[in-house]
């Protein structure tokens, strides 16, 4: 059985560090005691969720808001260690085919239903029911065959094969626990008022306007790394949707709202000069933002051409100037918040001479009238569909610089700005050579989703995750073994080898972490990003004036 005390002590220490770090923009008033009461207004720049129950579908906008009213079995602290939340402790079975969770005592959902092992089983069944239409949660539970309520406080997960990512999967807000009583209502009703154990409860949802969340006065189940115990300080949260970045920031400056998300690089620079605003830089977990090179067809099926592109195009100066220093260059397939992320900066030194030599040797040695390289009369061309929904303006400009840099090498890169549906359509039709697709997930198992050759086979919807079309049996083997081992050191070693293989195979050009910046008025203290998927939590938050 896992010992709890050291975890708790470490978690508390880390939490205080994180809280201090959160207020780096201003002068943290660490001596101030939390003030009870008040309404906090949050303005989200993400799309308004279509359903407040993150079991349904399962995307980031849902995670942002549901973190206030739903809780998961486990959480993650700032070190990247899994810590207790609704489960006090857990134990993997010796064959790796079962995990037993001991649940926190005395917790109830806000509708009065007790939180027990039956509730856990009901939630897993809800996620796995095709009628729920879950995609993120459903995928994360792929190896779970069922949950057995051994007794009221003991829930056993049965697996079809060992899953080293199970705890990380369960920490995600898309697998949070909801009242089994409330889940029996129709989906339409449950989408409007899901019921959890969280520090706040959904009071009302006026579509296109706001979600009102009120304090749960009986709250008793904070994650192990929380800043305090008992109910939240705030009375109420008004959760608004302000899609326009400039208006969102203007509303924050005017004091109309207290916290905003999706702060853009220019806003961050302006906010850094404003003493009344603090920044929380919380990169999302999972994959780094990267340009993937489609190895499934010419010209990037040739490793030398991939290497030439990656070593010949400078992205550093573009990242620096377009993001005003707010985004740090990444040299890893994984986000820097992943403890097992492996970086190799030496691979990405720009050397245009070497890149040109590589292209000459690969047979792209002639140039046409426009200065692009050719081989057997075919131009060295690459199509780059860009999702205007997912790539922020600074990133789209960066891609234009990449296009210009590649032109000097002799690549004819065509940027195609597309709306989300058309973008997925282009990918499904394999009409791309370069692509940048974010992927948020807790833990390094995201590598298996993105780079295992299984991921090249499209899902029924046409979607496939392995967009670099990396097909390497040795890599598949590493990823499979990593996903099954219960030995932490072996797991770390296997994932490092896997990342090395991906980087050295020139499949990706890492850019930076998936950017996620919050701005908070200094009059509000205690806001932090929950280290699982870095959604904000208002549990410890209070207003000083």
């Amino acid at each position, binding site marked *: 059985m896992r010992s709890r005390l050291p975890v708790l002590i470490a978690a508390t220490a880390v939490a205080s560090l994180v809280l201090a770090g959160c207020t780096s923009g201003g002068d943290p008033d660490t001596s101030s005691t939390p003030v009870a009461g008040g309404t906090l207004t949050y*303005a989200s720049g993400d799309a308004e969720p*279509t359903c407040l129950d993150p079991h349904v579908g399962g995307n980031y906008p849902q995670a942002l808001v549901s973190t206030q009213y739903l809780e998961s079995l486990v959480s993650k602290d700032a070190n990247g260690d899994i810590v207790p939340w609704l489960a006090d402790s857990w134990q993997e079975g010796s064959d790796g085919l079962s995990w037993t969770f001991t649940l926190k005592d005395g917790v109830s959902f806000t509708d009065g239903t007790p939180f027990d092992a039956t509730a856990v089983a009901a939630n897993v069944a809800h996620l796995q029911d095709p009628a729920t*239409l879950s*995609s993120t949660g459903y995928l994360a539970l792929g190896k779970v065959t069922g949950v057995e309520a051994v007794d009221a406080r003991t829930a056993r997960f049965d697996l079809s094969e060992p899953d080293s990512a199970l705890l990380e999967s369960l920490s995600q807000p898309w697998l949070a626990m909801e009242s089994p009583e409330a889940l029996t209502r129709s989906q339409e009703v449950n989408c409007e008022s899901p019921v959890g154990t969280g520090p706040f409860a959904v009071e009302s949802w006026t579509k296109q306007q706001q979600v009102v969340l009120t304090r749960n006065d009986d709250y008793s189940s904070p994650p192990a790394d929380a800043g305090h115990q008992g109910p939240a300080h705030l009375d109420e949260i008004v959760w608004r949707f302000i899609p*326009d970045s400039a*208006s969102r920031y*203007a509303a924050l400056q005017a004091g109309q709202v207290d916290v905003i998300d999706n702060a853009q690089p220019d806003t961050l620079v302006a906010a850094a000069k404003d003493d009344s605003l603090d920044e929380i830089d919380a990169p999302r977990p999972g994959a780094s933002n990267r340009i993937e090179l489609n190895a499934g067809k010419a010209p990037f099926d040739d490793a030398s051409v991939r290497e030439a592109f990656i070593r010949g195009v400078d992205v550093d100066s573009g990242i620096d100037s377009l993001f005003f220093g707010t985004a740090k260059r990444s040299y890893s397939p994984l986000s820097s918040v992943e403890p097992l992320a492996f970086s190799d900066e030496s691979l990405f030194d720009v050397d245009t001479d070497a890149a040109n030599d590589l292209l000459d040797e690969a047979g792209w040695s002639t140039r046409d009238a426009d200065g692009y390289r050719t081989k057997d009369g075919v131009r060295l061309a690459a199509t780059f569909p860009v999702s205007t*929904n997912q790539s922020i303006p600074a990133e789209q400009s960066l891609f234009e610089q990449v296009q210009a840099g590649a032109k000097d090498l002799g690549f004819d890169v065509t940027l195609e700005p597309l709306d989300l*549906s058309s973008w997925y*359509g282009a990918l499904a039709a394999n009409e791309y050579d370069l692509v940048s697709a974010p992927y948020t997930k807790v833990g390094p198992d995201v590598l298996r989703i993105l780079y295992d050759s299984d991921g090249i086979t499209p899902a029924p919807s046409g979607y496939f995750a392995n967009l670099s079309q990396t097909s390497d049996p040795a890599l598949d083997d590493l990823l499979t073994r990593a996903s099954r081992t219960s030995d932490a050191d072996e797991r770390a070693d296997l994932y490092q080898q896997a990342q090395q293989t991906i980087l050295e195979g020139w499949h990706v050009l890492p850019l930076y972490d998936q950017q996620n910046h919050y701005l908070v008025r200094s009059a509000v203290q205690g806001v932090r990003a929950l280290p699982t998927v870095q959604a904000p939590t208002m549990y410890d938050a209070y207003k000083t004036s």
Partner: protein
Amino acid sequence: MRPGRWRRAGRWLVGRLLGAVFVLWAVATLIFFAIRLVPGDPAEAILGGPGSQASAEALDSVRRQYGLDQPFFVQYLAQLGRLATGDLGTSYSLRTDVGRLLLDQLPGTIGLALLALVVAWSIAIVTAWWATLGGRIASAVSSGLEVVASAVPHFWLASLLILVFSTRLGLLPPVSTGTPAGLVLPVVTLAIPVAGFLGQVTRDSLLDAAATPFALSARARGEGPSGLFVRHLLRHAALPGLALSGWAFGSLLSGAVVVESVFARPGLGRTLLGAVTLRDIPLVTGVALVSALAYVVVVALGDLAERAVDPRGRAA
């Protein structure tokens, strides 16, 4: 003469109604086919947006549930049948009745657009009056302002107004609050480009009217400049502007897409933006149909107003 007038009015009404039905059918058909030209799968849109990693079972059950497994043309006829009975269907993304959703959003947008139309007319008339009476310089300045105003894009104007009136001066809230103060910036943003356009048209015909013999004879009868403007010139000069009010209202509705997003106001425009992004076919169709209907009604009203102002229209 009376029965003839009634017959003409009846014929006008029937023509309008038939026209409206045709417009609505055309909009429904166009949307139905256009949205299917966009790559991607509606079933996926229902399951949380494009790129969802939905399971095969989930996709199948959704296709059955929404009739997406039916042949294309059957879906189209079923859609028309539903629409004919007034059933706008269920939104894919919001999972609620489209009719109810639009009823909630309609008053906000129509109110915004009508208010902006009133403000636009007020600005246009004031500048036109100034241009007519204020001599050469006033005429040149107002004409320059009108050209600029009619060319400004909404998103730019909105950002500028927020920067000046909220961030710098702190006079007005940058995003809508549901209070009258929160309505000022969105209305002004929408009104200014339309005011520029209406102003240009109105001023031109005002200057024409001022040069006509009837203006001269009115002045000879002792009519002062203001009386001449209000009683004689405006009535004459407002005609082209009135005829354009229907068009102006349409442009206000489309401007609402931008304005509602920037000022975070709930409404039809913002609903449309979200629905298009999520490929929410029933919702896109619903918004388009309601906007088309509103447009048809306003054009008819503009037509009526024109007849009221201009006796020649009634005789013809």
